[in-house]
């Protein structure tokens, strides 16, 4: 049971990492701010600019 819980937790963490939700949480922590629409837009603009400088793999 513990193993399944760990697997599910790990899987959700992976989804949040792929979905940039973890990166956003880190962004809020490092900037000492709380979530707001403006803060998300600031974060995502910066994130996407870096992310889409690289081609997607074939």
């Amino acid at each position, binding site marked *: 049971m513990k193993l399944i819980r760990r697997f599910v937790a790990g899987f959700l963490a992976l989804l949040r990492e792929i979905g940039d939700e973890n990166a956003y949480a880190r962004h809020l922590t490092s900037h000492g701010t709380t979530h707001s629409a403006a803060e998300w837009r600031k974060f995502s603009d910066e994130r*996407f600019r870096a992310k*889409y400088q690289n081609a997607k793999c074939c």
Partner: protein
Amino acid sequence: MLFLRRVLWILLACAAAICLGAIAFSRGEHINSLWLVAAAGCTYLVGYRFYGKFIASRVMALDDRRATPAERLDDGHDFVPTNKWIVLGHHFAAIAGPGPLVGPVLAAQFGYLPGTLWIIAGAVLAGAVQDFVILFGSMRRDGKSLGQMAREEIGKVGGFVALITVLMIMIVLLAVVALVVVNALAGSPWGTFTIAATMPVALFMGLYLRYWRPGKVLECSAIGFVLVLASVFGGQWVAGSATLAPVFTLSAMAVAIAIIIYGFFASALPVWLLLAPRDYLSTFVKLGVIALLAIGIFVVRPELQMPALSRFADGTGPVFAGKIFPFCFITIACGAVSGFHALISSGTTPKMISRETDATQIGYGAMLMESFVAIMAMIAACSLDPGVYFAVNSPAGIVGKTADAAVKTISGWGFPVTVQQMADMAHHAGEVTLFGRTGGAPSLALGMAHIFASGGGGDAVLGFWYHFAIMFEALFILTIIDAGTRVGRFMLQDLLSHVWKPLGRTSWMPGVIGASAVIVLSWGYFLIQGVRDPLGGINSLWPLFGIANQLLAAVALSVATTILLKMHGPKFMWITCVPLVWLVLVTFTAAYQKIWSPIPRIGFLAQASQLQATGSAAASIRAQIFNNRLDAVVCGTFMLLVAIILLDSLRLWFGIISGTADSRVAETPFVPTQLNPEEA
């Protein structure tokens, strides 16, 4: 305990040998797909445990006491120490594209054996090694890119040539993946509606994430998934509607033009509106479908209908022309070795690794996972009736324009198929026809749909699963087109800025529009060429893409060899040099044959001469002659660019070995880690 462990590894190695032997020596009877799964799984485990760990410990000397760039340069954005399983998933999601799915499906024309052996051996001995060494090199150099490492390790010439090579490869890549989508959607109202509907869904997701529920990516993606699922059902309704079906029944040329126009606008739209939300969705769907296919294969355990070795090993195959050597290796491409992976291994991933030893699992392990995806694609293609496989994948220019002519030709090859069989299958799949649906995507979707439908529902759900698989493939191919056009534009603007500074500014609209147009028209030209090609386009474009991709791998392996040579002298350079020599042999032979072969279906110049000999002054013939010559020039340019890098590398290697060149390793100095094992 140690004894038991040794016994276990010996048993695993024996199992790998037995399974490989079973698939290699089985003739005349169908074998179960689990033999391929077991052969691949056992070989990967043995390869990872012994070869991967050998490279990690003896060659790279990975050291967990050394702080990684993720720790030293932690900025909360790019450089972030991350759990190794999350980095593995992230890296795998980034490297898994359409290549390992489509390549093996096309290579299945040789039978399942040649492709399967290369996917397994190539991944363990070459692909995973390349990804791993480049990841290691980047990790020890503050996350530097392949281009930067090429410039620093080999020289300025190498760095510049690598940039041009990547740009050219991207143009061919975008054209070929767009052609895969075109061939899947042409004449299919169900498929076309489904894919068209994903665009407003992505726009909705973009607005949802930006304004209505900012930051809720998983929630937004779940809604997006439900909507695209609804669009698959909606597509079935559209296909059955007498009014709407004709609207969404487009010719190949119309679909191609729509994709070109889409590519232009999508690359100029704000990223948050279309690209990013669809990228999130397609990544989740991709991981889900790959997992679903693995489960499906284990549950259904389909038998392989394709022979181990088909008659087309002689180079006369209808899917693409050319013998097993070198064309099977060129066609498989990403399933065994992919140059593009080197860009990911020297991109985001090295900036997230918290402990050096995690790099084995991430660099070497993720490539083995991708190789397994290729094995699954091979199983999906080979579990189809061979007659059906060739009817779907053979262009009309080879098998004949009518259904009767096609089945006669294919049955004459020894792969019996009937018009009724194809009509029934098309009916169940919700398509008008499945003849001549080249490009690999339709036959992969058909194979996947068969596996899923065999798990429950039978023919009644075949149409849903077929179009679900088409949606899955098109979703991430469109993301590649969108992102690739954008990146191509950045690279072009970067190059043009040396001519006139304002052209390099990514915020200057005339520069943005002009550069986007040049990139879109470049890949669009090759796409239209593929659509017009009477041999189906895939025959010329996929090998061109395969050659380009494998040549990029040769560039990455040159950088990797230089790194190993500087670290240890010539002692361990065979690790990357042997795959490099193999890739150079394969790619240069393939490129030479594609240019100079006297057989018109293989050689671009021979085909141009054959067309010229007809004496026809028709515009379409003149265009084909020009296109064949252009393809020959592109192929020759790839060879030339990579030859420059190889010669530059050889010059440096001889210098290092003879002591006349600088052999200092350009690694960042050792800094002890402050992370405790729990954190790492």
